[in-house]
């Protein structure tokens, strides 16, 4: 079981480790790119890698709250914002690789692509939903929004759902991976329906 408390310097160390780990997918792309090992279809490879990283980190972000509630480890919350911002970071890279590497800023082709293909429409919607969340993630914005911050940030559930649907609709036949992401997302959302464990259950008396 997770410890209920950890020392502040340990938390700082942990945040550093998580920060570096979250940069690994990008580092991998850079290394493979420099070594010219991105395969037969490098553009598709980069596009997919960033998309997968965004979704993975979004699920990691959504895992924090249930994990914290069950274990009583309050310090976990200190990681949530960073993971969420990394999910947004990879979503930006994902959209950028589509707009730049895949379409070369051909806005006419992009508009047509999005209007005609529903998986792109829901993907775009998921990305747009993440923008206000990233913008209001600072301490200042949290204070300013007060009671409205929580309901606003529940939009992340919708963004996660749309992200999974985007993935589900884009694959040709083999639905294994998108379904796996869907199941994990479903479990993480269902976990929120259970009442939080009381503090006294967790703390050794």
């Amino acid at each position, binding site marked *: 079981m997770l410890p209920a408390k950890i020392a502040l310097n340990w938390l700082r160390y942990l945040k550093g480790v998580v920060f570096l780990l979250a940069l690994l*997918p990008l580092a991998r792309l850079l290394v493979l790119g420099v070594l010219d090992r991105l395969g037969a279809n490098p*553009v598709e490879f980069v596009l997919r890698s960033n998309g997968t*990283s965004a979704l993975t980190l979004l699920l990691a972000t959504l895992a924090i709250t249930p994990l914290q509630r069950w274990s009583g480890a309050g310090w976990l919350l200190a990681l949530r914002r960073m993971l969420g911002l990394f999910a947004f970071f990879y979503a930006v890279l994902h959209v950028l690789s589509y707009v730049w590497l895949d379409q070369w800023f051909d806005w006419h*082709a992009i508009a047509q692509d999005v209007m005609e*293909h529903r998986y792109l429409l829901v993907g775009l919607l998921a990305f747009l939903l993440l923008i206000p969340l990233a913008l209001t993630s600072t301490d200042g914005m949290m204070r300013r929004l007060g009671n409205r911050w929580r309901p606003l940030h529940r939009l992340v559930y919708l963004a996660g759902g749309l992200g999974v649907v985007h993935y589900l609709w884009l694959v040709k036949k083999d639905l294994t991976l998108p379904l796996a992401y869907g199941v994990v997302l479903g479990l993480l959302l269902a976990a929120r329906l259970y009442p939080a464990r009381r503090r006294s259950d967790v703390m050794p008396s």
Partner: protein
Amino acid sequence: MLIRKPTDIPPSEITPRAVYRARRRFLLAAGAGLAASLLPAAAAGVTVQPQVRRKLSPIVRGPYGTDEKLTPYEYVTTYNNFYEFGTGKSDPARNAGTLRKSPWTVAIEGEVKKPKRIALEDLLKLAPLEERIYRMRCVEGWSMVIPWVGFPLAKLIDWAEPTGNARYVEFVSLADPEQMPGVRVPILDWPYTEGLRLDEARHPLTLLAVGLYGEALLDQNGAPLRLVVPWKYGFKGIKSIVGIRFVERQPVTTWMRASPREYGFYANVNPEVDHPRWSQATERRIGEGGLFNRRIKTLMFNGYAEQVGQLYSGMDLRKYF
């Protein structure tokens, strides 16, 4: 002022060695686990199953070609759609190499004078091997330029002697779960089948391929015998053929069964008819430009309109997609 001496710290506040060690182990394990989950199993580079590469000869130069740059051999043999060996692009190269290509026979059935079986060696004697450099356009929006080795399917059709009732040709792939790991998963309705109208099958561009780049086909490319129909999307090019059936009515192909809205019988390359998932107006040529590879315009009938356009005159290509 109360100054606490170190001895004032109650023993209960001090973390026992075993506990903090366990914590450190947990953090390390958690970190390693997260790292592993973020790094997809394989890098883009593909480990290819060792297979015997066999030169084919003699090969004569075929009447059709293109002066476009050939797609590097490395990509032609590692970026494949062959669900019998897995659904990922690099799965076939990784899992293939298990096909038993000798002996290999093809059953000729249906509306023919006499059903018969032909061994691969005998099939190769039906016509001289030609090299044909064709563009290949996948329905997913990428394309290659491949130097195939084979002979016109028409030569085999002549030998098969179809009856007057034959209007379509149906092709059947091998579906042996022992040799093909992908077949153990019901991702498609096995065996894979494809079909052509008889006049399409007899068209001089339609190739029965046994090799590429001057060598016998590797398993991932559809060894030992596959179809190449350059004006149609790649999935029409059925691989590892074991059966050819002449029929009166239009056959239902594997992809039509899987999703009739997305895949039609004709599947002619057509930039004006979009697929629900992929725009067909443009394509990406594999192996060119790395990350800065720009999409190119897709041509009607993949650039073979002059040769095959008359096969479809008067047909609504939006309806018969």
